[in-house]
């Protein structure tokens, strides 16, 4: 189950998109989300889908890999579609007892599904094509103006970085501890809610103990290498805009402009 979640997973490939500055990818994500909400017509979504298809093709991430991530939002999709289908008022299409399905409802449900799929695919492109390190680097740099307000941007970036880095480690740890307790006859699957919750104790306590131990080890390793936060810290790979980043920004702006234009013109 855990393996199916492609959200937040990096896919290593040698593509134009992968080479872009992470800040461009952050901008892409924001612009793409905005573009999905500028209009409510079929044309908006056709445009957004076409743009996304081109970008996905450029990333060289296999479509199968992207679709695997869709499985995890299936429930969300169905629920939001059903809400729209039954609760939007308008011209009735089908009427049966207290259930009314309206023309507008069907349309809204359809658009909602398309929008959500595009939204998740578009935003997952960011994590698929940039490593957590790159992303936090990009975020840190983009938000560094907040330092004027004495907001510790670097510390937040580092925290985010470490948290992301520890997700796969802790997942592996959970699997390991689960197996070890299963070998002692523990049962995590059967029984009611209370029994299941109780069965988590032998899993959670060792997990917390090991998380603290790892955090402690990491802190010591960082201190041993003289980590002292932001001040005077230089980077091995400082972020620098290349020509291709500027081109990417231009394309993004053009895309956003086109989307807004079509939303205003086609009503």
């Amino acid at each position: 189950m855990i393996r199916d979640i492609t959200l937040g997973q990096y896919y290593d490939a040698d593509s134009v998109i992968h080479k872009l500055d992470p800040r461009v990818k952050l901008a892409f994500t924001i612009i793409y989300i905005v573009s999905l909400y500028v209009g409510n017509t079929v044309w908006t979504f056709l445009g957004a889908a076409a743009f996304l298809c081109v970008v996905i093709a450029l990333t060289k991430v296999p479509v199968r890999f992207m679709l695997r991530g869709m499985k995890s939002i299936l429930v969300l999709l169905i629920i939001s579609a059903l809400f729209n289908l039954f609760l939007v008022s308008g011209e009735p299409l089908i009427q049966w007892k207290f259930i009314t399905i309206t023309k507008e409802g069907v349309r809204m449900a359809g658009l909602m599904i398309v929008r959500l799929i595009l939204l998740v695919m578009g935003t997952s492109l960011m994590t698929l094509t940039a490593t957590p390190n790159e992303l936090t680097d990009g975020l840190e740099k983009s938000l560094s103006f907040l330092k004027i307000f004495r907001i510790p941007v670097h510390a937040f970036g580092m925290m985010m970085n470490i948290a992301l880095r520890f997700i796969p480690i802790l997942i592996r740890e959970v699997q390991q501890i689960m197996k070890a307790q299963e070998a002692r006859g523990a049962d995590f699957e059967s029984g009611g809610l209370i029994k299941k919750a109780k069965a988590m104790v032998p899993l959670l306590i060792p997990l917390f103990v090991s998380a603290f131990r790892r955090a402690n080890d990491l802190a010591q390793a960082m201190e041993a290498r003289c980590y002292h936060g932001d001040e005077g810290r230089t980077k091995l790979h400082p972020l620098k805009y290349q020509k291709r980043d500027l081109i990417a920004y231009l394309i993004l702006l053009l895309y956003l402009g086109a989307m807004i234009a079509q939303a205003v013109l086609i009503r």
Partner: protein
Amino acid sequence: MKLELKGVSYIYDPLASKVKKAVDDVSLTIEKGQFVGLVGHTGSGKSTLAQLLNGLVKPTAGQVLLDGQDVHAKGFPLKTLRQRVGLVFQYPEYQLFEENVLKDVCFGPKNLGLPRAEQIEKAKKALRLVGMEENLYDNSPFDLSGGERRRAAIAGVLAMEPDILVLDEPTAGLDPAGRDEILSQIARLCKEEGIGVVLISHSMEDVAAYTERMLVMDHGKLCFDDAPREVFRHVEELESMGLSAPQVTYIVRKLNERGFALPDDLLTVEEAKDAILKAIMK
């Protein structure tokens, strides 16, 4: 009591583009009272094999048979298998969780549904078997030393009274004294309690000194299944798998190259010492 693997293979992710067999067509039988060593380079499939032995992972192909019964057949109680084949993972002390040692060791018997008195009786017996001092029973497992914690964790599996005990590198990260102590206790369990032991180890010295039968894994395949003395005759093949023979074997070889005529199947320091002394005295 007999545990049998028949043509067992295991593939991690059958959907992956490059299918890698963690365990590839392995057949073997393990019986009560045997002390078996299992060696192999990192990633050779030892740990997966260990998990196959007590049903924690299901083979992609082949069968695991307990006394002739397929353990993955419908209706076979996996708990029975887990009770009869105990598995001690690497760094087992990280699975301790109860407020005191005795309670933690009771966890296994409790899961088997035994009455309270019996749980405690079995836990105490297991703790005695691993040589845990009685005044430590009420301590928090997190207050113990590394070696003591390791022994408490092993007791946690022993308390289920398995017929076969599989240990995945039980001595990793321990000091030499702690290592010898744990290994000799395991050897005693095998001899006195008649428990079958499968010891996964990186130390050829330990395997040579303690085990009577040796399994060698390489790239998921079982390459040798013989007495250590026989296996260690194939030094070159072992080296091509990233393994080695006990250091003593190399010394004896060097000595023989320089004109000694020592037997070529010496495995332990004691044996070598006796042979060399005998050769010099002559």
